[in-house]
């Protein structure tokens, strides 16, 4: 997109998280493995917003929690600023001060019985900021999220603020330890329509002005298009499509992305109709072999049911995990371990 080189801050390499569940009733309950996140690689770069789009159950929140090291990955590795993180080791303060997570519901993620000042002072105290500096750091954090003047907010309780203001407090709390990576898990979905843009513009501004690497997780593909530098679509734990900028939204290559985009209500285009979904009963069933979208895919072929597709390059900087694109390109691409670079085989 731009000529400036964007340093990778946090990288995920082949990150997976599998959960073991037991289903059914009775004495013998068969074990089943749910692949919540399966072999996901991505790089969060400074001054870039990486948007991850997916519906509920696609594994996008588990991915964010793994990146924040709240959930331990089953396999794969995390690389922070070039240093590989020992996965078994407990999350230490150093990691937490570099990577911070903002959650979806500000009403649930800020303690309702404490003043805002308390919620902001807590992480600062944990990260060993001297008491004398606390006030300045808190005020600075609130100013960074455009809550002006900060003094007005420090003594308030969460119920005295609106959802939009509270989400800004939540972002301020994440920023007050000066992280390099900000993970935002559906930061606007609980907010009123009229204040959503304000929070999105804030995230974009923070990313540009403070060299933050931002992961923006959403189910609202239009908002991803609004702020993203790189867009990733997840389905059933897999990355099904990724592109630089918003190419995948403007010209979606994967049938799931096409379905997702055509489902968004868009009154400016009345002739557009959602494509028929082959088998609605297939929803919620993710096969272990073959493409995980195959049961719902209108273009599903024989090969889709037998072997899982790799990523195929559709255009420069735009790949889709779909067999349909196998013949369209001469070379198949695989994501190599080094730095998320694409190499041809």
């Amino acid at each position, binding site marked *: 997109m*731009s000529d400036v080189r964007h340093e990778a801050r946090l990288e995920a390499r082949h990150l997976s998280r599998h959960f073991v569940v037991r289903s059914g009733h009775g004495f013998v309950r068969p074990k089943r493995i749910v692949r919540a996140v399966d072999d996901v690689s991505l790089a969060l770069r400074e001054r870039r917003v990486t948007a991850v789009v997916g*519906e*509920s159950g696609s594994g996008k929140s588990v991915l964010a929690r793994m990146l924040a090291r709240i959930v331990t990955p089953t396999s794969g590795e995390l690389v922070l600023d070039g240093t590989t993180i020992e996965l078994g080791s407990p999350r230490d303060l150093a990691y937490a001060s570099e990577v911070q997570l903002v959650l979806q519901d500000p009403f649930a993620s800020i303690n309702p019985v404490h003043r805002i000042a308390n919620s902001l002072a807590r992480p600062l105290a944990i990260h060993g900021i001297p008491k004398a500096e606390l006030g300045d750091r808190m005020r600075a954090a609130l100013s960074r999220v455009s809550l002006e003047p900060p003094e007005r907010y420090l003594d308030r309780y969460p119920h005295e603020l*609106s*959802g*939009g*203001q509270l989400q800004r407090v939540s972002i301020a709390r994440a920023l007050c330890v000066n992280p390099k990576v900000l993970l935002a898990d559906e930061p606007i979905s609980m907010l*009123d*329509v*009229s*204040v*959503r*843009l*304000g929070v*999105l*513009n804030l995230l*974009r501004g923070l990313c540009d002005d403070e060299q933050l690497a931002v992961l923006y997780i959403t*189910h*609202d*593909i*239009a*908002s991803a*298009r*609004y*702020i993203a530098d790189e867009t990733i679509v997840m389905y059933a734990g897999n990355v099904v499509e990724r592109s630089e900028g*918003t190419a995948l*939204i*403007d010209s979606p290559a994967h049938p799931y992305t096409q*379905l*997702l*985009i*055509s*489902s*968004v*209500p*868009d*009154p*400016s*285009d*009345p002739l557009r109709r*959602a494509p028929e*979904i082959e088998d*609605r*009963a297939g*929803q*919620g069933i993710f096969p272990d072999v073959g493409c995980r979208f195959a049961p719902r895919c209108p273009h599903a072929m024989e090969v889709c049911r037998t072997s899982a597709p790799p990523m195929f390059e559709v255009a420069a900087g735009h790949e889709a995990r779909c067999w349909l694109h196998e013949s369209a390109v001469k070379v198949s691409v695989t994501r190599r371990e080094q730095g998320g670079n694409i190499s041809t085989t």
Partner: protein
Amino acid sequence: MDSATTNLTVDELNDTVLEIEDFCVDYGWGETAVRAVNNVNLSVRRSRVLGVAGESGSGKSTLVYAVTRLLRSPGVISGGSARLTYDDPTASDVKRRTVDLMAASGSELRAIRWSQVSIVLQSALNALNPVLRIGHEFDELLKTHRKDLKKEQRHARAVELLGLVGLNEDRLSRFPHELSGGQRQRIMIALALALDPQLVIMDEPTTALDVVTQREIVNELAQLRARFGFSMIFITHDLSLLVELADDIAVMYSGNVVEWAPAGDLYSAPRHPYTLGLLNSSPPLSGERHELVGIAGAPPDLSQPLSGCSFHNRCPFVLERCSRDVPPLRILDSSGRKAACWLHDDPTTVPVALRRVALATSPGEPAPGAPMTLAREEIR
């Protein structure tokens, strides 16, 4: 969306199912009362969809709960009337009946609810009893309202209803937690249609759902409406969804209806600054990326009402009188559309963005002319 209302005669157009007049709802009593719905006048026409848009706290849900007399204390209906007109299949002579919902007794209400007016709530997980199988919900409903049905007939009807919303009959033996969000919401819709009501109220039925599931349910609703011809009140905060779905849209802000217009007109040519702001708040899926500005400030705190227009502290076109006088909801032109805004009092004060010509075509044509956005700057 397809609507079943293409060739209406004048008579049918005047045929209202629900007429709400000067409706006011307070929370609490006396000095501390908070006005949640303020002098709302709305009507729902037969076989048509009225969309109600607004943010949280705008009073949209309170309005329909109060109208259907489901509002619980400390909610108080402090004024106004609501009349429901319906066809009574059991009556021998006069088929069409009008009931004053505010004066109706408990037994009258019980006769109307579900059989004439049904409601679909936002959270189907909370609306369905978690310890009862789905089949039980259908059975109980039919047992109460259709006493003549035998057990097998009730089961057959439940299967038929599930078929309407595209679910297999094996769902009847499931518990709510075994179903996905979309399936639960479909069950709620099937339950709402069980007694063939004249009016179905949908309170944010798709808000908690994924966009793909939302699309399926919206398409299904359109088909069901074409088939059964029920009227609908559809409440949501998603204005672009409403433009597709509704015939008329009322935009609520801070308890007041601030604009009312046919869906297409409202989208292509908003007249109230708040409607314009809402339309500008959703990033588009196509075209150049521009920095968009939502609506400045925060949604209103109803316990501290503003003097004058409740939107004046967030309005980009605010006039001096806006903070003094409350604008009435007035008819603007021959199409009958209404807005509550002082800007339209004097033709010279109407900003370009609120002066666009409504397209005569169906909802959704992109409008030419004046820019919609207030500020357009490339993000990078």
